[in-house]
C-alpha cells in the first residue's frame, strides 16, 4: 500500500495517472458520485469496443445494412451478444448520463472552477444523444427508419432554419441512402473523435479542480488512491460489466422487419429519449415546442452555474434543509401539473377548433396554462418559504427535469394508436 516502488504495467500506470496519489476520504464515498461518471466512461469504452467489432460486418447501404446485421447475429461467434451489449449499453448510457447530470447539479458541484465542466458536460450530453440517434438508424428496420423520419421531421418545424437543417442531416428530403451514410460516418468516425476530445477535457478539468467536490473542506482526511479509490472503482466497473453482459445474454436488441419507406407503422414514435420532446410538440404549437422552449432551456442551463453561491454551500447535497423540501414540493407540483395539462388537452380542450390564429390557440394559451401555475408556485416559495436564489433555481430545474420525465413516460407507455392516449 502506498509503496511507490511497485512496478505497474503500462495500462495500469496510465489508469493510475488519471488520479492523484491521495484523495480526500469524503470524496470517495459512494454517496458522493454514485460512481456515475465512472460508469459513463466504462460504458463508452464498452461501446467503442463492441462498435468496432460491429463495424467489421456492418454495411452502410439500404440494400445491405439490415441483412448484414441479421447475418452478424446468426453467423458470427457471439454476434448476438455483441450487438445486444452495444444496444443495451447505449440505452443505459442515456440514463446514466442524465443521472450524472442530476448528481452534479443537486450536489452543488457546478460552481466556480467546475463551471466549465458543467458546460463540457452539457456538450457531452449532446454527443451521447447524437451517438444514440445516429446509431438508431443503422439497423435499417421499420423501427429505426420511421423513428428517424419522425425526428428529422420534427426538426423541420424549427422556424427559419429547420427545413435547411433537416435536409442537411438527411442529405435530402427524405430518409434514404444519403442519410444512412451520413449517420454511419457521424456514428463511427466523427462522434468518437469528438467525444474523446471532450472526455479528455472533462477529466483534465476534474483534476484541475482538485477532484470532485466535498461537502466540508475543513477537516480533510487524505487517503491513498490506491487502494481506497481504485478498489471502489473496480467494484463499480465489475458490477456495471456484469449487468450489461447479463442483460445482453438474455434480452435481444429489437430488430423488426427491414425498413419499408412505403409503409408507416401505427403509431410511429421518435426514439424513446426524444419522446418527451415529441410530447411537447403534440401539445404545443411548433414554434413554441421547437424554438421558444428549447432556447429558453438552453439559456437557463447556461445561466445556472453563473449564480454566486457561498463557499460553504458548495458540494452540499440539495444545498440546504429547505432546499430538500423545495425539491420534493417541486416534483409533486410538476407531476400533477404536467399530467393534468396533458389530460385536459387530450380530452376536454380542443384549442385548435377556436377561431383565432393557431399560434395563440394551440401555442400561447396552453403555454400559459403551464406557466401561470408554475409562476404562482415559484412566487409562493419565495414569499412563504423565503427561498433564496439558488433554492429557486433548484425548484425551477426540478420542475423542468420532472416534467420531461413525465412527458417521456406518457410518450413511451401511454400513447398507442395514432399517438392517442391508450385509456
Amino acid at each position, binding site marked *: 500500500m502506498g509503496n511507490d516502488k511497485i512496478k505497474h504495467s503500462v495500462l495500469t500506470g496510465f489508469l493510475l495517472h488519471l488520479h492523484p496519489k491521495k484523495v480526500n476520504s469524503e470524496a470517495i464515498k459512494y454517496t458522493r458520485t454514485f460512481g456515475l461518471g465512472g460508469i459513463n466512461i466504462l460504458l463508452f469504452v464498452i461501446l467503442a469496443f463492441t462498435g468496432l467489432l460491429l463495424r467489421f460486418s456492418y454495411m452502410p447501404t439500404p440494400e445491405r445494412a439490415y441483412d448484414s446485421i441479421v447475418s452478424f447475429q446468426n453467423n458470427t461467434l457471439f454476434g448476438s451478444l455483441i450487438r445486444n451489449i452495444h444496444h443495451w449499453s447505449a440505452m443505459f448510457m442515456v440514463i446514466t448520463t442524465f443521472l450524472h447530470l442530476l448528481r452534479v447539479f443537486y450536489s452543488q458541484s457546478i460552481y466556480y472552477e467546475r463551471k466549465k465542466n458543467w458546460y463540457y458536460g452539457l456538450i457531452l450530453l449532446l454527443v451521447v444523444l447524437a451517438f444514440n440517434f445516429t446509431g438508431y438508424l443503422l439497423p435499417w428496420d421499420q423501427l429505426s427508419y420511421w423513428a428517424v*423520419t*419522425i425526428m*428529422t421531421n420534427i426538426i423541420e418545424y424549427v422556424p427559419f432554419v429547420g427545413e435547411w437543417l433537416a435536409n442537411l442531416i438527411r442529405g435530402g428530403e*427524405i430518409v434514404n441512402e444519403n442519410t444512412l451514410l451520413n449517420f454511419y460516418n457521424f456514428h463511427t468516425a466523427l462522434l468518437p473523435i469528438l467525444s474523446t476530445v471532450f472526455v479528455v477535457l472533462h477529466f483534465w478539468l476534474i483534476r484541475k479542480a482538485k477532484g470532485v467536490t466535498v461537502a466540508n473542506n475543513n477537516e480533510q482526511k487524505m487517503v491513498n488512491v490506491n487502494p481506497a479509490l481504485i478498489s471502489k472503482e473496480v467494484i463499480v466497473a465489475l458490477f456495471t460489466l456484469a449487468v450489461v453482459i447479463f442483460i445482453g445474454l438474455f434480452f435481444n436488441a429489437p430488430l423488426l422487419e427491414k425498413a419499408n419507406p412505403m409503409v*408507416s407503422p401505427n403509431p*410511429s414514435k421518435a426514439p424513446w429519449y426524444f419522446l418527451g420532446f415529441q410530447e411537447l410538440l403534440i401539445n404545443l404549437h411548433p414554434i413554441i415546442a421547437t424554438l421558444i422552449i428549447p432556447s429558453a432551456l438552453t439559456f437557463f442551463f447556461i445561466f445556472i452555474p453563473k449564480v454566486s453561491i457561498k463557499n460553504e454551500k458548495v458540494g452540499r447535497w440539495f444545498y440546504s434543509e429547505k432546499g430538500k423540501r423545495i425539491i420534493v414540493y417541486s416534483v409533486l407540483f410538476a407531476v400533477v401539473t404536467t399530467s393534468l395539462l396533458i389530460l385536459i388537452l387530450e380530452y376536454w380542450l380542443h384549442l385548435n377548433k377556436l377561431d383565432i390564429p393557431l399560434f395563440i390557440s394551440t401555442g400561447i394559451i396552453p403555454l400559459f396554462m403551464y406557466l401561470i401555475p408554475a409562476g404562482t408556485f415559484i412566487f409562493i416559495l419565495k414569499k412563504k418559504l423565503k427561498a433564496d436564489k439558488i433554492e429557486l433555481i433548484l425548484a425551477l430545474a426540478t420542475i423542468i427535469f420532472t416534467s420531461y420525465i413525465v412527458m417521456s413516460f406518457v410518450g413511451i407507455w401511454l400513447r398507442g394508436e*395514432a399517438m392517442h392516449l391508450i385509456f
Partner: protein
Amino acid sequence: MKRRNFFKKIILGIVGIETGYLVFDSFKKKKKKAVSRDLFEAGRIDSFEKNRMYPFNSGKFYLSVFENGGMLAISIKCTHLGCIVQPDNDGFLCPCHASAFDKHGEVVSPPATRALDIFPIVVSDGKILVDTNSPIKRKGFKKSQLTFV
C-alpha cells in the same frame, strides 16, 4: 510573442474555415446528384380516367384526376411528421398520428396543419410527367394548382 500568436490564430482560422467548407461541400454534392434525376413518367394521357386516384408508390405521389379533368400530383408524405398517407374514403389518412386530408390534399383533421405538398405536372408527347424532385408547399387547395390536358 504577440505576432506569433497572431499568426497562429490566422492559420487556425484558415484551417477551420477550410475544414468547415469541406464538410459542408460533402453534404451538398449529394443533393445536386438527386436534383439531376429525370422527371417521373406516369403514363399516357388517355390511360387515365376522370374521378379516379392513381397511386405511384415509386414516385412517392398520388395522381388524382378530378371530374373537371383537372389533375394533381399529391405527395404521399404527410406534412405533419413525414409518414406515408394512405387513401381513405375519398381522401387520405396518415396512419402515424391520424391526420386526415380531403381529395385535394387539404387538412380535414389535425395534427397536420398544412395541405399535402404537390408536384409540378408536365405534359409532353401525350405523356404525363411529374417532377418529383421539386415538391410545392401550399397552405390549401386553389383551382390554379390543377393541370389540365
